[in-house]
């Protein structure tokens, strides 16, 4: 990878972190609820009445209540973990392959 490209990537990644973190400090005390929930509030507003979902998520039906917050974050982490694991595994192989190929030349 060229030096210039490495620098570009570093700058871009810093930018990503800034975009993600700034709102947290800029909007002190904001709730940061999900925008999906904001969507359901909007439904209530438009209909002028509380909307009663007609189907409960299978997981909530199975454990007879809402998924505890900690468990939910566990499952989200699991999802991230699976993804990162796959990317890192293949990326590692590709990087090593390139090194090896470069040596051959």
């Amino acid at each position, binding site marked *: *990878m060229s030096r210039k490209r490495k620098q570009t990537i570093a700058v871009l990644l810093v930018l990503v972190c800034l975009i993600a973190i700034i*709102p947290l400090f800029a909007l002190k005390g904001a709730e940061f*609820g999900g*925008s999906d929930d904001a969507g359901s509030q909007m439904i209530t*507003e438009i209909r002028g009445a509380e909307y009663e979902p007609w189907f409960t*998520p299978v997981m909530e039906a199975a454990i007879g209540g809402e998924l505890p917050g900690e468990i*939910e974050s566990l499952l989200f982490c699991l*999802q991230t973990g699976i993804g990162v694991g796959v990317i890192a595994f293949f990326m590692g192989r590709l990087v090593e392959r390139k090194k090896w190929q470069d040596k051959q030349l």
Partner: protein
Amino acid sequence: MSKKEKSIMKLATAFALTFGIVPSAFAMHIMEGYLPVGYCIAWGAVCVPFLIAGFFSIQKTLRENRKAITVLAMSGAFVFVLSSLKIPSVTGSCSHMTGTGLGAILFGPSAVSILGIIVLIFQAVLLAHGGLTTLGANTFSMAIAGPFVSFGIYRLCKALKVNKMAAVFLAATLGDLFTYCVTSFQLALAYPSEIGGVGASAVKFLGVFAPTQLPLAVIEGILTTVIVMTLETYALPELKAIGFTREVK
């Protein structure tokens, strides 16, 4: 596409047209049970031909280049990671990205529908995020509409000879934003305002989703660009095989 594949596609399209005419609606991670039954069925039906096309497309890619499976797996994993990260946004609420742009640019939009639906099922079953009844609508917005826009924009930029990385960035960003536009529209169809109908309602839902999503779409665009840059360096043979990079660097 073989003859058999073609006839299956025709059947699926007919199926979609039959059921899709039922008025339908609620999108990107519309919560479980929030869409009237008719809409759930209709959006589900609309997705079927895309999913089948996606299946054939992946089959074809893999038959031609077995090795492309690594990059395909990485694109799928990319969707997994990005759609699991809830990021705070300027509006004071959180949302997450879709990650479907990468796969759409590399493998074409229909292949991503398969990757997307895997993630959506995972979230619907385990996380009570999105839902099984709204799976069709969510699949349509996140795994079909968004990727098609990404793919279209990428192709357009290529035709206009825009810098490749800028094209990737634009494609991923706008694809992500469009996913949420479709969601707003799907919600609006199911819940039209009393005054102004579907249009007014769509504006309201867009007002909730769009400002939150804008910075996230930019993040998604940047991350997609970064991963494409990295892949171009380390996975050049695969990218050439799937026709993404033609010229030798």
